[in-house]
């Protein structure tokens, strides 16, 4: 039997808030929006816990580490029957990133994804969305490469302060 929200679910959610993305450690997995559901069976002594997560990109190497970290924090908190399930649909989108997550990214020097999803089509040489420099806030920036240090980022440079920066691209 499953219950919607109880003390255990709240406790599990609070624990998930402490698991950080290994590649962008300022973001927690809940900031990223990759935790899709928390299921807890109605057993006060030893509940079955299921955490449903979704990858950002198919090949995201952080997913295995994240699954392991989730298991660790739950084990440390005394939970025993833990199941971590990965789902692919609906596909993760940057729209699921929390507002707090966006602010933390910017403070960390990574431009957060634009809040409205840009149209993603395969056409060449599309007008790029205006990306704000996380250092000086200028919108006068240019794309260096659509692919950056991790699958989720593009490389930009600011035309005003000249600083190169990562942009967490819309997806």
């Amino acid at each position, binding site marked *: 039997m499953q219950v919607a929200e109880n003390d255990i679910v709240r406790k599990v959610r609070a624990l998930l808030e402490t698991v950080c993305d290994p590649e962008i450690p300022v973001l927690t997995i809940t900031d990223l929006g990759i935790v899709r559901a928390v299921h807890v069976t109605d057993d006060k002594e030893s509940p079955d816990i299921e955490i449903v997560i979704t990858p950002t*990109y198919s090949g995201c190497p952080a997913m295995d580490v994240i699954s392991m970290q989730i298991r660790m924090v739950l084990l440390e908190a005394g939970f025993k029957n833990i199941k971590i399930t990965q789902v692919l*649909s609906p596909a993760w989108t940057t729209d699921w990133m929390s507002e707090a997550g966006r602010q933390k990214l910017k403070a960390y020097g990574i431009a957060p994804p634009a809040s409205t999803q840009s149209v993603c089509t*395969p056409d*060449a040489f*599309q007008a790029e969305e205006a990306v704000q420099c996380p250092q000086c806030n200028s919108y006068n920036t240019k794309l*260096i490469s659509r*692919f*950056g240090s991790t699958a989720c980022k593009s490389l930009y440079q600011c035309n005003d302060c000249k600083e190169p920066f990562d942009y967490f691209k819309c997806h």
Partner: protein
Amino acid sequence: MLSPKIKYLLYLADNALILGHRNSEWCGHGPILEQDIAVTNISLDLVGQARNFYQYAASEIGNNTTEDSLAYLRDVREFKNCLITELPNGDWGQTILRQFFFSTYQYFLYTALKDCNDEQLAAIAEKSLKEVTYHVRWSSEWVIRLGDGTAESHQRMLTALDNLWNYTGEMLIPSAYEKEINEALAIKGADSLAEKWNRKIKEVLEEATLPVPQSAWSQQGGKEGMHTEHLGYILAEMQFLQRAYPGVEW
């Protein structure tokens, strides 16, 4: 004897794995750092997609089959990837042109698959499509830049076109198991794949001031496990560790 569905899943997985592996050979060798990172990011996406298809195939096969046993313990004749994915990278222009041809195929294929009546296959396709959309944009922009670039880059793209064109038809000619799956999973748009692919290729080649080859002859066999000599070398490198030290983990 594998069912058509398992063959089909392996076909999708093998394409992604082998092309992903070829792209990974550019790691540390790209013409400039940003593009080295781009091609290896595409590699990572493709290997990730391959894992999803292999995991699904493994669950359908059962008998302790895993994504790893499918990738590391099958031999050449069991691989079903299109020949174009296993061809050597050649120069940067040839790598880019192959990526453009193949990503465009994957784009229209995944667009059709995401609405099929197999829930897990549709989910993998929906996820992969977002990534492949980027790959099509990136590779088509490079085809245009190089084709409509300098005399040398234009000449190199002509050579690449000549080397690759006869391998493009195979993607679009369905094998027996693809036909069965198109029917069984109600994959709409599978019949118009070739038409859509040709239209997109023509549009980009024209913008790149490159001719659209007229030759309709195509080199085939990969989908049925008949490969070029190149695949054996890829597997020798990719599978060495698991063959030499079965079950090793690190």
